[in-house]
């Protein structure tokens, strides 16, 4: 069984982001793997040890602020989780949360970046389709996630997102896993191989 932690769904629930969890659960079930989803609420203690996949999605700025304060207090827990090679996916403007770990820098945009996105990635063959509707983008240029054919990249380049170990960050919404089964299957395979270790 794969255990998925959906962080603060009642605060980070802009732009249909729960669709990512639904897509991942469905893809796992198609392979006969049970997925247990745990909604981590704001008033519960953040303990990631037992999870295989952690997800953070877009939220309104006021809510991101609340979550960021919470995450700041749990920095060590999150870094330990990442260093264990476990998976965290961060989408949309939630990218403005985990810069606190110090792996990447972010940049506030003067105007909202709104665009249809077509991209590719070294992780899987085929295109990645998504959407951007954000006032935050990643500034850091090393270790990007996507090559952008259409849309906005990090620091006005054609590369977008950030990856370190199994910590994946992108400004794309979609929901990207619901719109890109190639990417979802990448995470499914990764979860299967992680579970065998």
């Amino acid at each position: 069984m794969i255990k998925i932690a959906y962080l603060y769904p009642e605060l980070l629930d802009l732009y249909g982001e729960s669709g990512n969890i639904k897509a991942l659960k469905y893809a796992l079930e198609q392979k006969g793997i049970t997925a247990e989803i745990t909604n981590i609420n704001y008033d519960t203690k953040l303990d990631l040890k037992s999870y295989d996949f952690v997800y953070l999605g877009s939220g309104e700025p006021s809510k991101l602020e609340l979550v960021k304060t919470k995450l700041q207090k749990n920095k060590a827990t999150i870094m330990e989780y990442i260093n264990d090679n476990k998976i965290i996916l961060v989408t949309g403007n939630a990218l403005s949360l985990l810069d606190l770990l110090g792996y990447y820098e972010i940049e506030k945009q003067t105007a909202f970046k709104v665009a249809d996105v077509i991209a590719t990635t070294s992780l899987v063959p085929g295109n990645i389709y998504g959407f951007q509707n954000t006032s935050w983008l990643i500034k850091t240029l090393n270790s990007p996630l996507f090559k952008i054919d259409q849309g906005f990249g990090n620091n006005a380049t054609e590369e977008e997102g950030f990856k370190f170990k199994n910590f994946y960050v992108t400004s794309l919404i979609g929901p990207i896993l619901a719109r890109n089964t190639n990417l979802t299957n990448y995470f499914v395979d990764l979860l299967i191989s992680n579970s065998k270790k």
Partner: protein
Amino acid sequence: MKLIAIMVGKIMVIMGKILKRGSSFPGKYALRIDKNLFKHFKYPKIKIVVTGSSGKGSTSSLIANTLKVKGKVCHNSSGANIDWGVATTLLKYSNLFGKIKTKYLVMEIDERYMKKIIPYLKPNYIVITNLTKDQPPRQHYVDLVYEDIKKCLTPDSTIITNMDDPYLRNFAKDLPNKFVYYSILKNKYSYETQIFENLNIYHCPYCHHKLEYSYYNFETLGHYKCPNCSFKYEDAKYTGTNLDLEKKQLIINKEPLKIGGDMLYNAYNTIAAYACLQELNLTEKEIITSFNRLNDLPSKEFINKNKVFRAISCKAENATTYNQAIFKVYHDKNKKDIIIGWKEISRRYNHFDISWLYDIEFELLNDKSVNKIYACGIDASNIKQRLILSGIPENKIITSENLENIKEEVLKSKTSKVYGILNFDYVESFNNTFKKEEKSND
């Protein structure tokens, strides 16, 4: 000199009338000549503005059409609710000197254009119907719309809004204005455990503790309280009881009132208009008589091949309007087929954002009373993907590029009811497709 824009605009309105061409062009042109155009009109004494993510048109029409009995009303009845449209309406009703010679002014105004108009128009009453997720590529998120509206309101406007929605209480938290609330009390459609997800408020606006509800009417609407501070649902000045969507009526002050349709939003729009008119000192009898006439509308259902067909009009990119449609279908336990689709997502821009599909609670359609779901139109495959991820068995979902291709199958299906959960641009196609009489002799 300040009247030049009004004079030019006015002449364009008159020319448009002669040429029988109505549009928002005079307002657009006059605003180009003078961006402070709204400052130069002489407005009537009684000014009412209706804004919100949805329900502006119906609510303002009920108010305007009821007030007509009392005196002339300047109203943007065509629904042209951004700055050009509002300016064109004002030009139509004004003389060459910008004086609007009506007793009342009733304007529905797009929530993002309030800031351009309100500081000049200075309404006595502002009705805020709701603020929900809507057109994300344009609106981005609800707090932004809230801030936009909040900033432009002047303290002498009375704000009329919905007590059932804790999000709308933010206005009273942040503003010194006088507030008048309306509410629809617990009814046969209310529920105790939340059935919707991805909503715009879960926590107390004051202390951020999770709100507790004794019942929900729909999404975040209901009877709420904060377990940590004194924030809670308060008794509203105007309350509707015994909501009956099948009978299309609500009871206000022991009197039955027609709500003009079988959807929950019909009831909320009606009570919002009722509250506003009572504040304007119209008598209960005057309002009820008017509403029962204005809201006496024909049924949107029709019968073909012994099946009841019903198109429910929604707004693409607005999950709440789709959730209302789904909430309606969810309460109907008859065996049914459902058609979901649209011609296009937005007329305003070319973006292809389907994230809002994942804010809609399609999970509620995963029920044995649902026979088939037809995903139709240009985004059929995306609708299908969404339905699959709702847990609906794949063999129940059929995709089609258009309605014509599924017509025969739907007409032959052994269900008693067919619902269309459609963007407003697909309602006519639905009705035309399924209303058509067969040419055979049977």
